[in-house]
């Protein structure tokens, strides 16, 4: 309970700052309107009108909350205007990409740890892959796959995987190499095979590293899925909501979609955290 007060204080401070910024940023439009009409506006008028604009530069928190609520509950969740619908589209691509990326990351890390040739050849490419902006890669993947007749979930999942495999790869390489000399020597005295060493020692040792990477990876997968929705001219998904919002100056819609994405990311990371705790507890590694 002790932590509630500080959390609420920080939250309140953010809301106050946000309202202040909303008044400051949105007032310009009101002054411009008044100047054009040749009328005067009082400070109170400015204050009230900055809170209720249709297309504010920065929507006030209650407007975003309203937009969010409207988006989540205002219609059937299958409706094109429902944030639940769009959230699910993005979530499904995120999860598919996350699974793809995790599997790829783990497989590559196993190869890298066991083969010196792979260590030398794969790692530089993996690092290079992450230095290319995803915004540059995403349209190409979408276009190429579309020309092959692959549309919908898979291209988005591939882009999500492109971002999420890397943290898993780096974490697992570190994790699989975590066992030190003495533990490897011990298995050597048992004349253990490489396979036995992998299953009995390397893989269990890597679990804490794996989960740390998965948390980064699942958030990255979400970013990838959203970015993948931008160039496709997709009509559904949180990315599409962001894009159409910015086309039509629907700032409230943009912020609602942003908050939905943030909440989604937080929940996904939390779910991974829960699985981590349960797994490590079962393995006797949590104290």
């Amino acid at each position, binding site marked *: 309970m002790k932590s509630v007060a500080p959390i609420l204080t920080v939250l309140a401070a953010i809301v106050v700052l946000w309202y202040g910024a909303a008044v400051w940023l949105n007032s310009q439009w009101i002054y411009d309107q008044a100047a054009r009409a040749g009328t005067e506006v009082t400070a109170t008028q400015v204050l009230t009108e900055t809170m209720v604009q249709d297309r504010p530069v920065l929507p006030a928190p209650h407007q975003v909350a309203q937009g969010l609520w409207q988006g989540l509950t205002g219609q059937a969740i299958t409706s094109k205007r429902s944030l639940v619908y769009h959230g699910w589209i993005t979530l499904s691509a995120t999860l598919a990409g996350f699974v793809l990326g995790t599997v790829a990351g783990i497989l590559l890390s196993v190869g890298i740890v066991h083969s010196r040739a792979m260590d030398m050849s794969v790692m530089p490419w993996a690092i290079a892959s992450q230095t290319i902006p995803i915004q540059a890669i995403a349209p190409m993947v979408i276009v190429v796959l579309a020309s092959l007749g692959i549309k919908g979930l898979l291209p988005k999942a591939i882009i999500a995987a492109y971002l999420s495999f890397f943290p898993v790869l780096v974490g697992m390489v570190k994790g699989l190499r975590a066992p030190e000399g*003495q533990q490897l*020597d*011990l298995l050597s005295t048992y004349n253990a095979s490489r396979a036995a060493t992998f299953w009995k*020692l390397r893989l269990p040792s890597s*679990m804490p590293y794996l989960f740390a990477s998965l948390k980064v990876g699942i958030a990255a997968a979400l970013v990838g899925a959203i970015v993948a929705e931008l160039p496709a001219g997709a009509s559904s998904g949180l990315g599409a909501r962001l894009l159409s919002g910015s086309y039509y100056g629907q700032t409230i819609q943009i912020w609602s979609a942003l908050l939905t994405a943030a909440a989604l990311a937080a929940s996904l990371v939390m779910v991974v955290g829960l699985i981590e705790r349960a797994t490590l507890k079962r*393995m006797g590694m949590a104290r």
Partner: protein
Amino acid sequence: MKAPVIEAKDLNLTFETNDGPVHALKDVNLTIDRGEFVSFIGPSGCGKTTFLRCIAALEQPTSGVLTVNSMTPENARQERSYGYVFQAAGLYPWRTIAGNVKLPLEIMGYAKAEQDERVRKVLSLVDLEGFGKKFPWQLSGGMQQRASIARALAFDADILLMDEPFGALDEIVRDKLNEELLKLWARTEKTIGFVTHSIPEAVYLSTKIVVMSPRPGRITDVIDSTLPRERPLEIRDSPEFLAIAHRVREGLRAGHAYEE
């Protein structure tokens, strides 16, 4: 006359380092017979651990002949001729004590029922009955080291190699474990190679004490103990014990004088 369990003839091992070659072992000759308890004692860098690691095929000698059970160390390793106890217990934190002891048995492909039977047997051998379901962090350092000894005993190799197994433990726990180790040795009739820093520990435990000295790592004295096999802790105050300890100390000092 039975063949010796471990035999080293003119064994040399040189590590190539950036600062030039390091003679970890120089002209080591040693014979260990079945059922002996042999301690290796000497200052850091004298090659005692390196020699143990050569026996276990964890290091390759540069020249000379080393046989374990009349085989090369590599073949002996493949035959699973020895259990090795390291200075750190090195139990897997994600396995229970029983799970840890079972590890070599799983790797060596023992049947499930036999695994359980052997785990039960060796845990009682090291006085850890009832702790099988605990995780390592729930046990004290001394108990963890006993579990690691049980792990080395589980597959019933006839040689037990121990590299300063009690080095990290306090004096009182160490005394108790030394006593238990002697009993265990008497019951299992294994051949034990034991690396230590401690003169009383070496004299108390061993039938043969190998005194080594550094730069180059070599044997300066081999002392056959005259103490009886049955050894209560009080034997450490007997004149016979002190005489052997004195000779070990002399050997260590001679090794050091060489350096100056």
